């Protein structure tokens, strides 16, 4: 049989088990010509790349890694849709299956399913170096003969064998079409026993009025009561259901009960195919991967190494990112100053300096942390440790209703929730992944530190315990971190019992062999993910920053400012312009006075801006938390990012925007602030604690919400996150303030 269809573009789908280097091969083949495709209603994404072969454009689709083509959810159905062409998309013209040469037995399970799709198929035999290092000898020619499809040995991470792979693809797509030569399963016979094939034929006949692809009929027979039955038979006659049940009963009686028959039959087929293909060493070689594994999963040593490793990762994120973040901030401040100097005072200057530059800055300032975290995550993934980390932490995480796979994403979230949420892609179970995403923002990220630092330094007394090893400020900081963790555990347990209730997903996963990480692969993944954040989240965060700027700037009613201030400012400007060199000391004094007045003017304008009005409007709501309208106002302004609260407080307290958490002036101002009528101080210890608790639990981070939207594919989840976290934050702050005041009063 030979089919040949003339086409302008060929679609080639890539499938493979996880950890087989599929994405590495995809990147090596398509280079930079990639884009991410999203399918409606699913949370997985498929990447599409293109390359030109023999003058023919080839579209390459990278499908999510999977051990089996047995769809149990819409997410897993994507692969079938792409391969077989359902729901409006054309079937793939060719399939490349990537297999791990050192682990052929299990990898060929998926191959046996792919071959049943009856699409032209090519086998890329990856990681041949690892197979060799284990003393395995593979007869590629024999494997090719057994499978009756082209088999090409490659080493994707070192880009070896790619030319041969491309030329094999070319030879398959002669004449612009793809030729199917023979039946791939003819050499080894069908996978399934005869009674099963008979039932299959019977079922296909039953569905003949609206025929399904043969593979889907087979899945219907195999996947009892599963997703497919529901999806494919919903509008068929009840008779079909009865016949299906009867067919399964007959198979069980014949000793081929579904679903067990599938694994049994496929692995028997794999054994037939591999007969003589793989020669193993007489005695199993103790590989260096085994030796490393023995150490890294050792009860004591393994745990110790794990803890040290996580600490190194964590420390480096802070240590390395700190100077980079400092430079980014300094650079943005410089750009702001330059723009400020070049433009006349007014709305445009304010828009550029306080809106655009600050908005871009709020995206850029997190990039160092995000990139460094992605670097570590890519490193851990590529060397094979990621799966071990999940293995080591599983029992602990199970107690929180999650699995070991949630550990690294949640740990990353202590630096920044964004890479943490993006790292949840390793969790294949949708409910576990969603739970992890929803609690990740509760980990105290680095953006909360400025808030904690400022308030602790200003209001928590410096009391030492145990001779200064433990201090009250230190304990307070620790309490904030613990609060986040404890609330996250409670929320996760609650979610898993209510909204995201379901069967515990299996933790049956491969622990891949260790290998040297490839620099190219690691850097590529780091930039790919970092760039994805900038491109998709950046624009929205920027937009939010502009909106908040506008709320803080307009209506910009200068008549609200005390006319005396305006007059004095004009006078000072004139004096400064006319000043001579001899008046140096006076000039300094005038400049100081001018800066103070300008800050006062800015404060007055902010108090009468939309933001200020909103702050005053919500004062009744925040008063039970011990807050005045100024704190409420700062809390609203910090919606795009928590750390903005510090500089907003700076403006409100007439200190200008250049205040940070270590500024003594802001500390003093906060300590001196009083309620207008009673003259009582606004900031007391309970108020400071209430603000800290609020910021520990709130979702004041536009970037996180945008990333949740992107990872879950709908606005429902970020909205849910925002509502539940704000509610928790409010209740937490309320309890803290009320209990604190009562204790202080008692």
């Amino acid at each position, binding site marked *: 049989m030979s089919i040949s269809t003339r086409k302008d573009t060929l679609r080639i789908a890539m499938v493979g088990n996880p950890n087989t280097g599929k994405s590495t091969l995809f990147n090596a083949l398509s280079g930079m010509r990639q884009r991410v495709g999203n399918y409606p209603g699913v949370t997985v994404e498929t990447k599409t790349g293109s390359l030109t072969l023999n003058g023919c454009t080839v579209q390459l689709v990278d499908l999510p890694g999977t*051990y*089996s083509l*047995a769809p*149990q959810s819409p997410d897993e159905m994507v692969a079938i849709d792409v391969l077989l062409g359902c729901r409006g998309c054309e079937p793939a013209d060719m399939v490349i299956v990537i297999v791990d040469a*050192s*682990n052929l*037995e*299990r990898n060929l*399970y998926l191959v046996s399913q792919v071959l049943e799709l009856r699409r032209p198929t090519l086998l890329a035999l990856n990681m041949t170096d690892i197979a060799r290092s284990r003393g395995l000898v593979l007869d590629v020619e024999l494997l090719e003969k057994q499978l009756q499809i082209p088999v090409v040995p490659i080493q994707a991470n070192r880009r070896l064998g790619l030319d041969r792979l491309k030329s094999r693809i070319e030879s398959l797509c002669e004449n612009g079409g793809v030729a199917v030569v023979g039946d791939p399963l003819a050499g080894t016979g069908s996978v399934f026993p005869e009674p099963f094939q008979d039932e299959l034929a019977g079922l296909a006949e039953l569905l003949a009025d609206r025929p399904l692809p043969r593979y889907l009929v087979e899945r219907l027979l195999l996947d*009892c009561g599963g997703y497919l039955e529901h999806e494919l038979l919903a509008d068929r006659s009840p008779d079909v259901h009865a016949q299906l049940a009867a067919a399964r009963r007959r198979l069980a009686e014949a000793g081929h009960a579904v*679903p*067990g028959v*599938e*694994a*049994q039959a496929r*692995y028997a087929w794999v054994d037939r195919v591999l007969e003589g293909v793989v020669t*193993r060493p007489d005695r199993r070689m103790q590989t260096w991967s085994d030796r490393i*594994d*023995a150490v890294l*999963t*050792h*009860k*004591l040593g*393994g*745990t110790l190494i794990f803890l040290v490793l996580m600490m190194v990762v964590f420390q480096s994120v802070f240590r390395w990112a700190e100077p980079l973040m400092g430079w980014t901030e300094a650079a943005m401040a410089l750009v702001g100053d330059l723009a400020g100097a070049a433009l006349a005072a007014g709305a445009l200057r304010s828009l550029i300096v306080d809106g655009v530059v600050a908005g871009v800055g709020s995206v850029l300032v997190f990039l160092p942390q995000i990139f460094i975290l992605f670097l570590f995550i890519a490193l851990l993934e590529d060397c094979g440790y990621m*799966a071990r980390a999940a*293995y*080591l932490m*599983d*029992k*602990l995480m*199970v107690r929180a209703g999650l699995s*070991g796979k949630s550990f690294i994403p949640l740990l990353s979230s202590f630096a920044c929730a964004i890479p943490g949420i993006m790292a949840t892609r390793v969790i294949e179970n949708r409910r576990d992944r969603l739970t992890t995403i929803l609690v990740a923002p509760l980990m105290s990220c680095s953006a909360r530190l400025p808030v904690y630092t400022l308030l602790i330094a200003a209001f928590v007394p410096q009391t030492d315990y145990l001779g200064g090893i433990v201090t009250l400020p230190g304990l307070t900081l620790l309490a904030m971190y613990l609060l986040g963790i404890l609330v996250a555990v409670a929320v996760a347990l609650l979610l898993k019992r209510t909204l995201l209730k379901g*069967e*515990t*997903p*299996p*933790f*049956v*996963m*491969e*622990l*891949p*062999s260790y290998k040297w990480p490839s620099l190219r692969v690691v850097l590529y993944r780091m930039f790919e993910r970092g760039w994805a954040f900038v491109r998709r989240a950046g624009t929205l965060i920027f937009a939010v920053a502009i909106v908040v700027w506008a709320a803080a700037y307009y209506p910009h009613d200068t008549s609200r400012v005390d006319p005396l201030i305006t007059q004095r400012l004009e006078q000072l400007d004139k004096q400064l312009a006319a000043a001579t060199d001899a008046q140096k000391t006076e000039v300094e004094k005038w400049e100081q006075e001018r800066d103070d007045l300008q800050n006062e003017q800015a404060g007055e304008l902010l108090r009468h801006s939309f933001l200020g009005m909103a702050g005053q409007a919500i004062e009744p709501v925040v008063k039970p938390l011990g807050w005045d309208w100024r704190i409420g106002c700062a809390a609203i302004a910090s919606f795009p990012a928590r750390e903005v609260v510090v500089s907003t407080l700076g403006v409100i307290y007439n200190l200008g925007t250049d205040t940070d958490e270590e500024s003594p002036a802001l500390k003093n101002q906060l300590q001196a602030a009083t309620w207008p009528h009673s003259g009582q101080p606004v900031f007391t210890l309970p108020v400071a604690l209430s603000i800290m608790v609020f910021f520990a639990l709130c979702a004041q981070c536009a970037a996180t919400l945008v990333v949740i939207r992107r990872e879950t594919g709908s606005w429902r989840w970020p909205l849910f996150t925002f509502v539940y976290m704000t509610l928790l934050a409010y209740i937490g702050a309320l309890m803290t303030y009320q209990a604190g005041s009562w204790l202080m009063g008692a």
Partner: protein
Amino acid sequence: MGRLSEFEIGQSGRVVAVEGHDPVGRRLLEMGLTQGCPVTLVGTAPLGDPLELEVRGYRLSVRRSEAARVEVESA
């Protein structure tokens, strides 16, 4: 005959059957724990769970509760 979850570290055996048709049971089969397949318990995580198995030439991690589904005969 016994359960895979009751194996001592280093013990080997052959799979007799896997219980259950739910996702856990199906996944165990897909990963290669079919009837007659040799399996070795290589070790456990520091907290005693999950287990690390050697099966079909690769390392597989399963929770103790999942391993309890696998009926094995000791070699």
